């Protein structure tokens, strides 16, 4: 046993070429540049961060607020520039930290824009910032050759691979539920738009197709990290990665995510492949390959332990939902930050009411007065957002002179092709409920789910 541990230890500490960090840095940088550019060109800066009157904040992060005026444009322009800097390795330490901060800032602004792959980018950009990815084949090194490093301990690459592998693995674990495996839901529902495609449309009407995609997806997610990890299975696994992401990328509106994953899973290729690529690039751009210097700052051990703790937390987070009673898909308590991607179809509607106990007057709330369509959609099925909306309404009505507004709501939610059901206690004054990590017992149980 101790032999095994010692083996792992020495493997992790083994000095390997820095090349994988360099290739991933370049690919990641250009991808993020494209992503920021796409976001701006789509008009989303305006739509998601300037136009909304209100923003739904993450618990404990309500102090994170969007910048006024054109401030958000500057954030995105800066983000794009930092991504380019990362790619070319200019002021890498600064640009990588700045990119992480800017990106994470934007993601913290509005829960209704939460996507697992944005969360992934935040984590990955932080990990990159901690590593010496700018110390070879970079502008930094061209300017200050003494910065160049040729080797790194293997655990740096290992940590990135584990992080990447976990995204797939936990996405696979999440698919191991009755709806996904035995009702082929939500895929059966999501296939409806494809049934009219020429030639292949008919196949999307078959139950078999939905079941194949459901089971295939689960098997793919659970096995791909391991298949990528072994040299023998790697080429075929990478082919599967490309195929899987290209297909899902065309089928579903998942933006940059497929392309980011296709590019980052390169990280699993053998180190000598990366070394060859980087050496060739160096020759092409007339860079001197670095003399043999290893990266060994004083904090290496500390950093290694930090990463170990980080990865451990990452492995525990997806299971925190077990601490809550009720069905995870219904209550969504412990749903986020767990790689539950493309997992359920929820359709909800929420009619809020504000009443003034002093006068007995009641107002019906017209959600579009306060929220964007995306915000309304997200708010209607997520309990913590229902609470935040109640407090938005409470403040709105206080400001027009209702001293103690009572906020109630008729919320109906439909899950994975079932009929909709009442979601929360419609007598409860939501403005009196405080959000927190405790179980929200005002969600009505879905017993036979």
């Amino acid at each position: 046993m101790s032999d095994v541990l010692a083996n792992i230890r020495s493997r992790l500490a083994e000095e390997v070429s820095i090349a994988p960090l360099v290739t991933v840095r370049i690919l990641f940088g250009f991808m993020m540049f494209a992503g920021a550019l796409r976001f701006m060109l789509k008009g989303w800066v305006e739509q998601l961060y300037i136009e909304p009157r209100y923003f739904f904040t993450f618990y404990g992060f309500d102090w994170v607020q969007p910048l006024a005026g054109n401030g958000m444009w500057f954030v995105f322009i800066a983000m794009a520039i930092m991504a380019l800097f990362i790619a070319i390795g200019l002021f890498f330490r600064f640009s990588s930290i700045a990119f992480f901060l800017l990106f994470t800032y934007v993601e913290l602004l509005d829960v209704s824009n939460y996507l697992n792959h944005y969360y992934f980018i935040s984590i990955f950009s932080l990990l990159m910032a901690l590593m010496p990815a700018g110390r070879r084949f970079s502008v930094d090194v061209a300017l200050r050759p003494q910065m160049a490093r040729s080797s790194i301990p293997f655990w740096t690459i290992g940590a990135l691979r584990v992080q990447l592998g976990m995204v797939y693995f936990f996405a696979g674990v999440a698919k191991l539920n009755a709806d996904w495996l035995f009702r082929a839901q939500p895929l059966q529902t999501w296939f409806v738009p494809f049934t009219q495609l020429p030639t292949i449309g008919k196949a999307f009407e078959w139950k078999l197709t939905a079941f194949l995609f459901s089971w295939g997806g689960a098997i793919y997610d659970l096995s791909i990290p391991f298949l990528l990890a072994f040299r023998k299975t790697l080429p075929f696994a990478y082919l599967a990665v490309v195929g899987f992401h290209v297909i899902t990328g065309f089928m579903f509106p998942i933006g940059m995510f497929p392309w980011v994953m296709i590019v980052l899973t390169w990280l699993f290729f053998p180190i000598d492949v990366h070394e060859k690529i980087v050496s060739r690039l160096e020759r092409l751009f007339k860079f001197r390959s670095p003399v043999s210097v290893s990266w060994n700052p004083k904090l290496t051990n500390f950093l290694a332990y930090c990463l170990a703790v980080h990865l451990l937390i990452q492995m525990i987070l997806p299971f925190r939902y077990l601490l809550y009673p009720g069905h995870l898909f219904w209550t969504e308590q412990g749903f986020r930050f767990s790689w539950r991607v493309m997992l359920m179809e929820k359709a909800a509607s929420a009619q809020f009411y504000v009443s003034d106990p002093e006068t007995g007057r009641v107002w019906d709330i017209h959600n579009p007065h306060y929220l964007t369509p995306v915000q309304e959609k997200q708010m209607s099925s997520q309990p913590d957002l229902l609470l935040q909306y109640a407090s938005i309404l409470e403040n709105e009505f206080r400001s027009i002179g209702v001293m103690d507004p009572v906020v109630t709501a008729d919320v109906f939610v439909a899950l994975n092709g079932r009929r909709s059901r009442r979601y929360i206690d419609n007598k409860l004054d939501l403005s009196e409920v405080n959000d927190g990590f405790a179980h929200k017992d005002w969600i009505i149980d879905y017993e036979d789910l």
Partner: protein
Amino acid sequence: MRKFLFIITIALVFVSCNAPDDMVHCDFDQQAMLTNYADNVIVPRFNDLQVGVTLMDGAVQAFCATPTTSMLMEARISFWAAYEAYQKCSPFSFGPGLINGVSFRERFNTFPTNTTTIESNVSNATMVSAAPKSSVGFPAIDYLLFGTQGMTEEDVVALYTTDVNASARRAYLLQLTAELKQTAQGIHNGWSTYQNTFTANVGTADGTAISMLVNELNFDFETLKNFKFKIPLGKYNGGTVIPESVEAFYAGGSARLALDQANGLRNIYLGMGENGSDDLGLYDYLVCLKTGEGDDQLLADAMADQFTAIINALENIPDPMSETLVSNKPIVDDAYLQMQMLTPMMKSEMSSALGVQINYQDNDGD
């Protein structure tokens, strides 16, 4: 994995083969449904509207030529027929129903109308083409043909004969009906070419015929619920009823028009044609998709039942609804509650089952 890809390939290769029924989730002919909608619902309804507003325009011309109480009565009757025909067309503001990117509804039926603006338009001889939407369309004609509360037919006729602005008023009224006639004819003609585009535009993604139809159905239903009931009931102002905000306030036929609209919406949902035919509709699509299978009732049937409940509740409301709002508010409230119960089914369950995005806002998912 290799096996998985292999099976997928096989599945796609054998696409032309027909699988047995229980192997198929739902085999639905979208194109047949769209053809039914175009041929038996949309085009006949726009034809009725076109005929209705043309007759109204003729009756108004006759009235303006000889402004008598009997000619006024003729004009009023034609107004009702045209307004009722409009109620069945209001969910179709796509394709030819969009005029320079704006829904035809805006200039047909923006209510409550602004009588101050109408009077100033009349006295300043403002052209209808230059008048704001709050002073044109059916609501403006409603005001001009029926006059304010307590006015007799003779009082109204006097405004077109002896009043200082009589000739300007006649001119404004004539332009109002002419505008509606021209637009309705334009939309009806537009459908003769748009029809094929519409029926061929299969799928349910944003921009497809079904997506437009479902979005419009929802929008029109929201209009019925919010503008015709919630606002007059005082749902947005803390409970003070606003009788003068109802549709057709001067003519006093709000409940009747609401009933027409609700019947129109139900028939779209069921796929019922204007000639009484019952062919493929959204109801049939939902039956095919079996949404809610395993629950107490299929979504398709629950929605059909709820439409019936709404129509029954509307039939209970006596006109003029502006008076019923004051004398018997609970009866109006009940109709609103029945509509409210349809909202989750129509807006979220049905659109989710069909893969249609409501109020489409472009964004990524994961």
